[in-house]
C-alpha cells in the first residue's frame, strides 16, 4: 500500500513536470496555431472544412423530416476534384456536384453543410450516416449498389483516348500493337485489359505521371475518363482527343444509405422535376463550360431527368 502511494506520487509529479516542460517548449507554437485557426474561421464560410459541425444520427440515416427539422442537410462532396467538387480561392465549395447539392438543399428548405470526402471512404460515410447524401462523382457500379442506394443518374462518363496530333489515334483498331498509357485502378485499365488484350498497357500509379509519360513519348496514346482527356487536350497544344467515347458509358449518381428510400425517392422526384427547367444543362453552363469550352458537348456528359438516351 505504501509502495502504491509512492508510485502514485512519482507518477503525478512526473506527469506534471513533463506537461509543464512540454507546455513551455511549445507555447510559441500554440499561439501561432490559434492565430492561424482564427484567420481560418473568419476566412472560410461555415460550409468549408468543418466536420465538427456534423451532427447526424448514430449510424442510422436521418429521415426527411429529421433533416428538415434540423434545418441542415449534410452532403459529402469532393473538395479537390475540379470542376466537379472543389474549393475556390475564397474557400467556397464549387463545381457540378456542388451546384446540384446546393439546389437539393434549397428545395428542401434547409441549409447545406459540405463534408470533404476521399474516394475510398465514400461508402463508409453513408453506411455510418455521417452524411445524408454523397454527391462526389460517384460512379454507379453493381458492387457499390449492393451497399448503398443510388438515385437516378445526373451525369455520364465514357472513356476518351488522347494522342499527339502527328500520330492521331481515331479508332481503337489503330491501337493494336501500340502502347496505351493508363492510370492504375481506373475504369480505363479495366476496360482495355478485359476487352482489348492486343493493346500494350503502360500503367502508372499517379495521375500526373500519365500525362507526363504521354508528353515524353513513352506511349502512343493515353486513356482515361473523357472529361479528363478533353480538358487536358484543350490546355496542351499538339494533342487531340481522337476517340471521344469508348466503352460503356458509366453513370454518375447521388447515393444515400442503403434502405433510406424516403430520401432516395425525394431525390429521384427532384431530378425528374428539374428536367423541366433543364437544370443540369444550366449546371453544365455554369460549372463545366468555363473549363471545357467547346471541347465537350453537354450532351456527352449531362443526364437530364435521370434518362440516358
Amino acid at each position: 500500500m505504501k509502495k502504491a502511494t509512492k508510485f502514485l506520487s512519482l507518477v503525478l509529479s512526473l506527469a506534471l513536470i513533463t506537461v509543464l516542460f512540454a507546455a513551455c517548449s511549445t507555447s510559441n507554437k500554440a499561439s501561432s496555431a490559434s492565430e492561424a485557426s482564427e484567420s481560418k474561421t473568419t476566412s472560410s464560410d461555415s460550409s468549408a472544412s468543418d466536420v465538427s459541425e456534423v451532427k447526424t444520427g448514430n449510424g442510422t440515416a436521418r429521415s426527411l423530416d429529421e433533416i428538415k427539422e434540423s434545418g441542415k442537410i449534410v452532403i459529402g462532396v469532393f473538395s479537390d476534384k475540379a470542376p466537379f467538387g472543389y474549393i475556390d480561392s475564397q474557400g467556397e465549395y464549387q463545381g457540378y456536384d456542388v451546384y446540384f447539392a446546393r439546389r437539393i438543399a434549397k428545395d428542401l428548405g434547409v441549409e447545406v453543410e459540405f463534408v470533404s470526402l476521399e474516394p475510398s471512404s465514400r461508402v463508409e460515410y453513408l453506411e455510418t450516416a455521417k452524411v445524408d447524401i454523397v454527391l462526389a462523382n460517384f460512379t454507379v457500379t453493381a458492387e457499390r449498389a449492393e451497399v448503398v442506394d443510388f438515385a437516378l443518374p445526373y451525369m455520364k462518363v465514357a472513356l476518351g483516348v488522347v494522342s499527339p496530333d502527328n500520330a492521331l489515334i481515331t479508332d481503337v483498331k489503330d491501337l493494336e500493337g501500340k502502347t496505351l498509357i493508363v492510370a492504375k485502378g481506373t475504369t480505363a485499365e479495366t476496360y482495355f485489359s478485359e476487352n482489348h488484350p492486343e493493346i500494350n498497357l503502360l500503367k502508372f500509379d499517379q495521375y500526373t505521371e500519365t500525362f507526363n509519360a504521354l508528353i515524353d513519348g513513352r506511349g502512343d496514346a493515353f486513356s482515361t475518363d473523357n472529361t479528363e482527356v478533353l480538358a487536358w487536350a484543350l490546355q496542351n497544344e499538339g494533342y487531340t482527343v481522337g476517340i471521344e467515347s469508348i466503352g460503356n458509358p458509366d453513370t454518375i449518381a447521388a447515393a444515400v444509405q442503403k434502405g433510406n428510400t424516403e430520401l432516395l425517392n425525394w431525390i429521384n422526384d427532384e431530378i425528374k422535376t428539374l428536367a423541366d427547367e433543364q437544370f443540369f444543362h444550366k449546371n453544365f453552363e455554369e460549372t463545366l463550360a468555363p473549363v471545357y469550352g467547346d471541347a465537350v458537348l453537354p450532351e456527352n456528359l449531362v443526364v437530364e431527368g435521370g434518362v440516358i438516351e
Partner: protein
Amino acid sequence: MQDLGIRVLFEGNNFARLMGGLGITIQISLLSVLLSIVLGVLFGVFMTLKNPVTRAISRVYLDFIRIMPQLVLLFIVYFGLTRMFGINLSGEVSAVIVFVLWGTAEMGDLVRGALISIPIHQYESSYALGISKKQTYLYIIIPQTLRRLIPLAINLTTRMIKTTSLIVLIGVVEVLKVGQQIIEANRYTAPDAALWIYGTIFFLYFLTCWPISKLAGYLEKKWKN
C-alpha cells in the same frame, strides 16, 4: 506565365486557408501530445510493475497499437464506433483519440525505458544518505528520468505532426489537404501551382518541426550524462 503558380498561393483566401489547415494540424498534434505525455507516464509506470497480468496487458496493448496502421485505427474509431455502438464522434475527436492511443503506447514505452535505465544504486546511494523515498524520486530519479524523456517526447511530437496528414481520410481537412484543394482548383489554369503549394507546405512543416527538433537536440546535448 512564370509567376502564375506563386500567384495562386496568395489568391483570395488561399494562404489563410493553408495557415488554417496548419492550425488544425498543430492543434490536433499538440492536444494529442499533451494527453499522451500524461497517460504515457501512467502507462510507463504501469509497464514497470512486476505483476505478470499487468505485464501481459501492457505488452498486448503496445503490440496492438504498433502493429495496427494508424489509418486502420482512425477508421475503427471514426466509422467503427458508429457502426458498432452508434457512437458518432467528429473527425477531430477521433483523430485525437487515435493519436493519444498511439502516443500513450509510444510514450509509455519511453517512460518505462527511462525509468528502468536509472540504475538501482542511484536509489540505494540516495537512501544510504538518509534521503527519504519521496525526496529520492523528487531530487534524484525524476530529474534523471525527465532528462532522458524530454528529447524523446519532443521527437514524438514531430512524428505526430507529420502523421496528421492521414486524418484527411476521416474528413479532417488539414494543411496538406488544403494544399491539394488549392492545386486541384487551379489544375487547368495554373498547373505549376502544385510546385509552389507543395513547396509552401514543406516549408510550413519545416518551420513547425525544425525548432522542435532543434530543441530536442539542444536538450539532449545539454543533459548528456
